[in-house]
């Protein structure tokens, strides 16, 4: 399938977590769900619907590709591609900028009513 050029940003928390878990290692579907739960300390729990909806979108964008199992007993694994890593880095930079700006604002600026 031809990867789409447009980069959807910002990513939803579930999408970001899925990409972040795949950045560490190749995982199968249930492995991703477990890893997301562990990584977010149980705050984000995604179901199969959300997972495969996101995976489908990532595969259309060329961010993730599936590794077909060698035998019927094995599960299909998913791997983050170079384009996926770039998209994840872009999103992390965007969040990083947002956090830095917000911190500066919160610590540096006084409330208007005081001035």
């Amino acid at each position, binding site marked *: 399938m031809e990867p789409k050029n447009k980069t959807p940003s910002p990513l939803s928390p579930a999408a970001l977590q899925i990409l972040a878990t795949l950045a560490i290692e190749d995982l199968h579907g249930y492995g991703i769900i477990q890893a997301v739960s562990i990584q977010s300390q149980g705050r984000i729990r995604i*179901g199969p619907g959300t997972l495969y909806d996101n995976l*489908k979108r990532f595969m259309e964008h060329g961010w993730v590709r599936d590794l077909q199992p060698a035998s019927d007993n094995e599960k299909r694994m998913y791997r983050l591609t170079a384009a996926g890593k770039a998209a994840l880095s872009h999103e992390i930079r965007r969040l990083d900028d947002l956090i830095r700006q917000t911190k500066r604002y919160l610590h540096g600026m006084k409330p208007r009513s005081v001035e």
Partner: protein
Amino acid sequence: MTRSISRRLYQQLLLLYTEPFRHEFGDEMLGMFEECRVAQGSLRLLADLVLSAAKQQIRYLSVPVPKCALLYTEIASSPNLARMLTIMVFGAALVAGVFRAPTPKLSQPCTLSRTERILVSDNRVGTISH
């Protein structure tokens, strides 16, 4: 919700997805349902499926049809969300209409004589003679 019922319901609700999606991920999702059910609960998984199927359908319908495709009509092998919603709305309207419709009442009793009734039922109204 018992295990077999929830699994069967999940299997049926998978039909809400588009055919290509179901073909690609349907078996994996159904297999994963059992693994996730213990940790997340059936209702949560069913709600997750319905929401993501709705997103899929909206995305699927929002893709513009290529110009060359105007000459043929695709026969969908799965009921898409818009079609199912339309059927549900019309079905609900039909059921509501059936239950609300007043039963017809005869305001006046029939004044025809017995002979006239026989003639009317035999379609020989024009031959009545007193």
